[in-house]
């Protein structure tokens, strides 16, 4: 049930040798693994041009795509895209920083070739590990405040974490907590900013009861900030009970059933007496049985309640010199004030690191940069605006490369909208085959990233002309489907097609 799983989860992939080079880092040891891949510790290696002492150790999250059918590889890429997209936009001292992403190109190790690697800030351990030890009330309170701060920042920005659990709360070397794992982060996309839609995934013990009855719509299940608040209620209870859920049962399935019984009004909420009264009341509000009842409690309002309780005198505190996570702080409120100042500084630092990262990766011989910063470099915007070029379709599938019979299984699709997921409802009826030459108007470097069958990753798309008589005059070919990189202008950002 706990933290980093044993070696069984990584049997699917071979362990990486110590010292394996990734960009400008090398692998030191495995940290954790799951069905999605493995996280390794990494440390900076010198390239002879600069010092490494000022660069920090990192966590390297490997998402292998080898052996996956194109559709699954796309799913891995989609998860990575969510993390990268979120990581590039979000930056906060309570969120684990994404330092960059890259795709391994290592034909000598087929199991690694095409693997997507996310480079992240390195934590000491997870809250799951910490729950095994004794967490006293003061430390528990501090950690809950820090988790709330992370959630409040996410929710303010119109995001929902979607998978809050002790495994995804990381404890840094200085003892402070940061939220991590943004693969299920969902943007609140509706006009009033109350909900968005995410993949129908989650962790049994942390899913709110309404999720078990939630309908699956075209874009996934409805996700609202109250999802994170429910999970926070579970985490608060676990904090003071060595990781015990408030819901009885020996397995996650029976605990989920117990949560359902409670939400249906057939069983009361029975929390462990080890949870101090103030935190028990807070957790009970987070665990309100319906979304509507829970919506009254936001991460902000919970923070305000905690602050009010911790400092009834409301004495103006001087946070100067206070570390961002003063563990032994006599007055928690002072810590809160001090932290707000630290946040501003950290924000500036985040931006600098991200820029440095893009530079570092471009120099790292074995990797190609990805994400919104990278691919623009591969297609030089043409000086001769308006001049259309030609590109030849390339199919990486060897059995499709040299046959001229235009077999359906060798056909490739063209997207309607390069900004929407490349799925069956986003392709035009026109198919293309290896060797076809297409007229191209322009290129767009920041579409949905596409991984081809051999793991090449690119977010670049070409706007190509369709034959006369087609319902549309143009469609989009992913850059991974051609070897050509003609000097053509950059397309204007496509308007969403519905």
């Amino acid at each position, binding site marked *: 049930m706990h933290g980093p799983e044993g070696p069984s989860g990584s049997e699917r992939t071979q362990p990486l040798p110590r010292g394996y080079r990734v960009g400008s880092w090398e692998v030191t040891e495995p940290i954790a693994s799951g069905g999605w891949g493995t996280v390794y510790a990494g440390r900076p290696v010198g390239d002879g041009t600069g010092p490494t002492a000022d660069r920090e150790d990192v966590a390297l999250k490997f998402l292998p795509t080898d052996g996956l059918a194109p559709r699954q590889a796309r799913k891995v890429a989609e998860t990575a895209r969510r993390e990268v997209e979120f990581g590039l936009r979000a930056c906060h001292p309570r969120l684990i920083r994404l330092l960059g992403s890259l795709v391994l190109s290592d034909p000598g190790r087929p199991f690694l070739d095409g693997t997507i690697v996310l480079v992240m800030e390195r934590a000491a351990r997870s809250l799951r590990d910490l729950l095994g030890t004794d967490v006293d009330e003061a430390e528990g309170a501090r950690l809950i405040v820090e988790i709330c701060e992370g959630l409040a920042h996410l929710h303010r920005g119109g995001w929902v974490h979607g998978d809050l659990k002790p495994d995804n709360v990381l404890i840094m070397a200085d003892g402070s907590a940061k939220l991590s794992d943004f693969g299920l982060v969902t943007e609140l996309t509706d006009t009033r900013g109350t909900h968005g839609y995410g993949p129908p995934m989650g962790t049994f013990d942390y899913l709110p009861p309404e999720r078990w009855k939630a309908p699956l719509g075209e874009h996934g299940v409805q996700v609202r900030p109250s999802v994170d608040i429910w999970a926070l209620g579970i985490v608060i209870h676990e904090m003071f009970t060595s990781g015990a859920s408030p819901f009885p*049962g020996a397995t996650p399935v029976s605990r989920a059933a117990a949560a359902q019984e409670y939400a249906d009004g057939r069983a009361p909420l029975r929390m462990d007496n080890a949870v101090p009264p103030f935190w028990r009341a807070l957790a009970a509000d987070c665990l309100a049985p319906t979304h509507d009842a829970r919506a009254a409690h936001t991460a902000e309002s919970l923070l305000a309640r905690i602050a009010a309780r911790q400092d009834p005198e409301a004495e103006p505190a001087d946070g100067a010199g206070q570390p961002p996570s003063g563990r032994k702080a006599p007055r928690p409120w002072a810590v809160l004030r001090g932290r707000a100042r630290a946040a501003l500084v950290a924000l500036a630092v985040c931006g600098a690191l991200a820029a440095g990262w893009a530079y570092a990766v471009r120099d790292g011989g074995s990797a190609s940069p990805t994400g919104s910063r990278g691919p623009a470099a591969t297609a030089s915007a043409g000086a001769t605006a308006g001049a259309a070029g030609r590109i030849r379709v390339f199919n990486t599938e060897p059995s499709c490369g040299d046959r001229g019979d235009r077999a359906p299984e060798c056909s490739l699709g063209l997207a309607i909208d390069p900004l929407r997921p490349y799925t069956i409802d986003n392709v035009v009826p026109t198919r293309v085959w290896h060797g076809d030459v297409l007229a191209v108007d322009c290129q767009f470097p920041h579409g949905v990233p596409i991984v081809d069958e051999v793991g090449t990753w690119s977010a670049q798309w070409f706007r190509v002309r369709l034959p006369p008589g087609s319902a549309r005059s143009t469609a989009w070919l992913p850059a991974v489907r051609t070897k050509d990189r003609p000097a053509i202008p950059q397309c204007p950002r496509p308007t969403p097609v519905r």
Partner: protein
Amino acid sequence: MSGIVVYLPQKSGVAGGGPCGDAVTLRLGPGEVARFGRGSATTFVELRLADEAISRLAGEIRVTDDHWQLSNHSATQSYVVENPEGAGEYLRVPPRRAGAPIPFEFSRVVLPTRHGTTVAFQVFAPDHVYMDPHEIGGPWGSRTVTAYSLDESATYFLVLVALCEPRLRDESAVAVPTTPQIVERLRPHAACGRLTARAVSSHIDYLAGEKMRISAPAGGEPGREGRRNGKREAIVGLALRFGLVREEHLALLPPRAGAGPRGRETVG
């Protein structure tokens, strides 16, 4: 955990269901109980089985975790729970057995009657949990999983794969197969030789309603045919988008006759 569904089909005469012999559908959440039997003014039962050979309170069903338990209140009769998909798989619940766990997703509970006939009702347990692929071994409790579990050995899964087949094979312009096409496609399969069009429709309804809980597509064509097509399209679109059906599942289907790449026709 959304619970279970109990369905007592409509029957005329001795084995009537509701007060007027209507079909009865009960939805039970975790921890809920439904009693069944002949019933009386003093013995209330949720599921009335109108046969004089059946006790007034013959037994009860209790939802536990992702499955359910059957208690047999009869002192003399054994009840049989059949798995309609299990090629004769069944279990016998002896007299006075309390809370026997029932492991089937689909069950048919059969009670004997005096004339050598039987009375039966069905229980569906759509919450059964399956681990995600590549998650074999090791603890899974704190892992992030797909919240929709499908039994890849069930007939409904074969129907789902057959529905998705044209798009999985990237014949993307092709429409979702019709019910007769599914029946035809699955006929060579050992478990589907006697699959009827009606059964295929029920499997599709079960997938859409109980397993994937698909919300009705907005603005669909009016009329029954339009709605039904909308539901199929939605099932296929979501199953592929969220990876419930993948390329590897095509191997579950019987080989296609004559539809393969050119050259196979001369062999077949």
